[in-house]
């Protein structure tokens, strides 16, 4: 068995693959954040709580209505995205004229309310959510055993990420959206309902978070604090990638997942900090992020 830097090649490749899987969660979540920040200039601290709501929603659909995973994939983003629309309409829209930091504080407060309410209602031990039948089991790749579900997560999130990127960067709708953020009055003068676009965009970003939550439900414990553990890391990912850049968020998400995976092999105790160290370095050298323009 050959070795690289004292680690067997097999182990290395399997860790890289695992890193890619984690990276797909990072990418999916930072995609939602990047969409919201890039197009609306809002830092959505509630993102973690909305991801958690997505997972819980999937749990409810299964346990109260008997609707399984595949239903959840469609219904949950719509449902949670709708709550996002309500938040935007009622609260966020009032803050656009003010300093952006107020949006940060509002979403932070909302995250506390949501997480606290779920914790109050459901406790902290978490709820079990079983994996859909069709995705259980896995294949032996030779250097590791790859669960089918994890392979599905990589493929699905790649598809969604690329689809979203395409939608925003290459379609007319996306162009309209980007124009609306840069010059809302001009675009509105052309007869486009800019406030509604903004609302729907926020809802879309929130829906992405909820979708990630559904992906997470079978493999991570569905608990009220699942969001807050993840959200800070995802912020770091978005900042490194460039806060407005969609492609940046996607590439950085996958990339950082891989780097984290490598760190777990060579120096596991630092695997939590490595992303923040990178973030601090990037902010020093290239403050707008690796792919951002400002």
């Amino acid at each position, binding site marked *: 068995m050959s070795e690289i830097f004292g680690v067997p090649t097999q182990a290395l490749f399997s860790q890289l693959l695992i890193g890619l899987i984690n990276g797909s969660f990072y990418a999916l979540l930072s995609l939602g954040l990047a969409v919201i920040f890039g197009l609306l200039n809002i830092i959505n601290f509630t993102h973690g709580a909305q991801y958690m709501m997505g997972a819980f929603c999937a749990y409810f659909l299964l346990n109260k209505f008997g609707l399984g995973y595949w239903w959840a994939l469609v219904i949950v983003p719509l449902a949670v995205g709708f709550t996002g629309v309500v938040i935007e309409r009622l609260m966020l829209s009032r803050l656009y004229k003010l*300093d952006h*930091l107020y949006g*940060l504080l509002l979403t932070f407060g909302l995250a506390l309310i949501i997480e606290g309410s779920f914790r109050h209602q459901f406790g902290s031990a978490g709820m079990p959510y079983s994996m859909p039948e069709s995705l259980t089991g896995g294949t032996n790749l030779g250097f590791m055993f790859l669960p089918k579900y994890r392979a599905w997560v990589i493929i699905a999130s790649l598809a969604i990420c690329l689809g979203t990127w395409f939608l925003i960067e290459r379609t007319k709708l996306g162009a309209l959206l980007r124009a609306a953020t840069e010059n809302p009055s001009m675009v509105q003068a052309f007869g486009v309902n800019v406030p509604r676009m903004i609302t729907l965009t926020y809802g879309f970003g929130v829906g992405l978070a909820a979708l990630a939550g559904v992906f997470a439900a079978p493999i991570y414990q569905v608990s009220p604090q699942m969001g807050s553990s993840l959200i800070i890391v995802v912020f770091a990912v978005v900042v490194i990638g460039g806060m407005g850049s969609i492609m940046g968020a996607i590439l950085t998400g996958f990339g950082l997942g891989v780097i984290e995976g490598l760190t777990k092999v060579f120096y596991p105790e630092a695997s939590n900090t490595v992303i923040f*160290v990178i973030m601090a370095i990037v902010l020093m050298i290239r403050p707008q992020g690796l792919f951002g323009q400002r």
Partner: protein
Amino acid sequence: MTDHTDAITTAHDEAWEARYQRTAFLVMMAILIVLPAVVYPVFLMKALCFALFACAFNLLIGFGGLLSFGHAMFLGMAGYLSAQSAKVWGFPTELAILTGMGAATVLGFFAGLLAIRRQGIYFAMITLALAQMVFFFCLQAPFTGGEDGIQAVPRGKILGIIDLTSNTVMYYFVLAIFTAGFLLIHRIIHSPYGQVLKAIRDNEARAISLGYRTERFKLAAFVLSAALAGLAGATKAIVFQLASLTDVHWSMSGEVVLMTLLGGLGTVFGPVVGAFVIASMEHYLSELGAWVTIAQGIIFVVCVLAFRRGIMGEIEAWLRSRRKS
């Protein structure tokens, strides 16, 4: 970030402001001196430490215009060093507190060097990232005791004579520290340095064009804020006789933002009021567990949407408008 429509002030206005500040200060001191007779002193000491922490934070955001989302790193790090020096190295209490404060100052200098280069959201994100790194360091470093924290820290004696074991004596010691810190902040705000800082906050480009090295001013504000937050943390460790991870966790950073926002960003007394309100809420709601988090969230939301000036901000605006009529 603070809604300051500073109109041109006349000499009358300034005299009134000075009178108001003096009166408010005397009222605050009178209340604080008498309060332990009716309220449990340990709770008051906690509130005072948080009040100092919030005042230090307010220096940076209210007067420097920089929102730090990682201030817990100063509170917590100072607490650990203070506890370590008092318990393990056997320092006398005052020296232990100064050691803690010193640690926070050094940390503030290096963190500031990294963070000051950016503004607004990016500044907040950098401070958050740095605080997370400090948190993970504290989690793993052997001396901090990890999840257990540093326990059984001795209260010690002031000047080697006055025993601090009694809660009442300790309270007045903490009050003295708080007053010193508060007055120092007041001095800074109303000094020429403070004026420049406010100018930088309101319009940095213009300040640069006037020839000021704005980076230096902002760094100094950051370090001062860190040092005073450290003072609060170091004192808190002695009061509770323990230093724990709670004080370096990012939720603590969020709490100080909440206190200052609620009390009134950019006001002198706002952070004190905010700290006391939040500490009371946590204390009296503590039997209801998750409700504390929910209540904090609601206060954030309400403040941001409808109450941006905060308690003292509203009161001061009302007083000023009354004066005009």
